[in-house]
């Protein structure tokens, strides 16, 4: 079953194509991540699906309904968090949930939702007194008030401390377990890698690649990385002499050697270093990460 179907979506702002012919589908029960730097067009895409913006052209279907025709019916069946999390600062958490519940024909109990999101102690606290993490969890609770089949979370953990981020990840994991479809945008690699069943990498309004996190890495990198630190004054270029080394990258003082035959290259490296009487420290192997995939696809780091 398809939860979201997007075909050739285009949205232009002042002559700039913010969304430039995007197509993808999201299956029911999936956590789908749209990963990309700020300004990639993620929010525009998700806001078209939320009914907040009209696309210039292309097709957008949510839960089998056409966005243009059934916008208000779609809004009844989906839940939304926006990037801006501030919500009526003078109301309490419970009042806000109660208010939003009144917008839908059917809604969950505010108290149950507050308990699910670990906010029961804050039920009578005004929104403005909540911490960033608590406000973000409240925003998620609001997105769930109508017990939606599909939840859009736009950069839900941006600006949160690691602990608050982890607790929100658990909440998203819970949604997944009860079979909800989650559409997530993020610029955190770790978040996408950890939560998403499938990821689309977006930049300059286009989708560059789309697959499972592992599939994305494997499709882009057949090589593995050998990473270690070297004594001061040693030229990293010397390691080109080691058999099997395809590329050399230096990262924060570390040397990273890429190889497709990692076992042979590693033993050659050891022999070569012993012959040179060179002390290598902190030697480890790693697979390429989504970050590497991103750099390879876009030519830049995601935060640049």
């Amino acid at each position, binding site marked *: 079953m398809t939860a979201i179907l997007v075909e050739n979506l285009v949205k232009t702002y002042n002559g700039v194509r913010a969304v430039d012919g995007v197509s993808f589908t999201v299956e029911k029960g999936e956590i789908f991540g749209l990963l990309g730097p700020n300004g990639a067009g993620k929010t525009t895409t998700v806001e078209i699906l939320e009914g907040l913006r009209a696309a210039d052209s292309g097709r957008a279907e949510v839960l089998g309904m056409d966005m243009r025709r059934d916008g208000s019916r779609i809004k009844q069946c989906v839940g*939304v968090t926006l990037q*801006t999390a501030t919500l009526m600062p*003078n*109301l309490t958490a419970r009042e806000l949930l109660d208010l939003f519940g*009144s917008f*839908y024909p059917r809604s969950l109990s505010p108290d149950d939702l507050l308990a699910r999101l670990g906010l029961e102690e804050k039920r009578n606290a005004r929104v403005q007194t909540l911490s960033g993490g608590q406000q973000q969890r409240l925003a998620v609770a*609001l997105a769930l008030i109508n017990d939606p089949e599909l939840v859009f979370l736009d950069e839900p953990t941006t600006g949160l401390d690691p602990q608050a981020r982890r607790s929100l990840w658990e909440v998203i994991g819970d949604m997944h377990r009860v079979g909800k479809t989650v559409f997530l945008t993020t610029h955190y690699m770790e978040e996408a890698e950890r939560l998403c069943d499938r990821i689309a990498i977006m930049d300059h309004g286009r989708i560059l690649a789309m697959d499972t996190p592992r599939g994305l890495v494997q499709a882009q990198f057949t090589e593995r990385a050998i990473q270690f630190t070297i004594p001061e004054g040693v030229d990293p270029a010397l390691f080109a002499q080691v058999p099997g080394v395809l590329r050399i990258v230096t990262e924060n003082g570390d040397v990273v050697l890429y190889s497709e035959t990692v076992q042979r290259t590693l033993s050659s490296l050891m022999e070569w270093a012993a012959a040179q009487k060179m002390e290598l420290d902190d030697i480890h192997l790693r697979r390429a990460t989504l970050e590497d995939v991103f750099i390879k696809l876009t030519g830049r780091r995601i935060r640049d």
Partner: protein
Amino acid sequence: MTAFLKMTQAGLKSFLRDRSGLFWSFFFPVFFIVIFGSVFGRAGNRDQSLRFQIGLVTTGLPIDAAWIPDVFKKVPVFTVHEGALEAEKRALIRGDRRAVVVFPPDLIDHIQIGQPAEIQVYYDPAQEQTSRTVVGIVEQVLAGIDKGLSGSPTLLQVRQMPVAPDGARELNLRGIDYLLPGILAMTIMQLGLFTAIPIINMREKGILKRLRATPLPRSTLVTSQIAQRLVIGVIQTFTIIAIGMFLYRFRVSGSWLALMGVVVLGVLTFICIGAILASIARTQESGVSLVQLVNLPMMFLSGLFIPMEFIPRYLLPVSQALPATYLADALRAIMLSAPSAHSLTTDLAVIVAWLLGSLFLAARLFRWE
């Protein structure tokens, strides 16, 4: 319906929990009444009350007709000067008189043969609002005399000339009577204009956008915002009148229903103007400045608590274009049952015109983000 009620309730709760909003909406107008009230005079203190300078020309009028101009001396809002026609007209042009009433020498002859006598009332057409008020009162007084002459001609009846249509009380315009409807008009104006701030706030914080992602109909959003303001406006109206009654023995002599109707019309009009300002301003700070830019001139040029006669001539056309001028005038007409500068129909027509115009613009300019 539940969504509408909950939205209205949520808005009112937010309003009540915002101390500065409460201050401006309730304590500020009350403060104004107390301060201005103590300047303009307390209950029954006629000497400090607002008075209009009237010139009477009685040249050649026989002694037995002298009681007619004397009636004018008993009108509490008039300070009467007697003099020659030319001197009084000069005083009028200088601005020392609001109106000059000229009685013909053959007044009694006309009355005796039952022929209408012409009584000329000079006034300054540039001081349109004041002149209309004064001329209105003069006409009422003359009509009363006329009635006295054609009916049972007792002087006493004439002296107790009621200006209220229902004859509830004699015209006794004190400063506070002029002031209180003005303060009410100011409060309604500010209630509406300052709607801009919560709108900008909801837009800046993304609350409007978040609401748009729910199935809440736009009409419910808009009507609930209006309902909140109307509830606040009605509470303000009762508060202000209650303070006036308690401190200054103020009485509403007209219809409460008509009063509430005008209050509602005023709130709606100024909400629309506030919504336009909200769409023009980019940030909350610029919104506050913009609202003040509209609010301050209206406060001082609409005759809210500074009578029109103190407004410089060159600013009068501005005054006469402002909706608050007509709101204050309509409130005075209803609350005091006194002749006002404009007819109530004119007042309502101008306010409705402003309402429709600004409603149209507000709808055109509205931005969700």
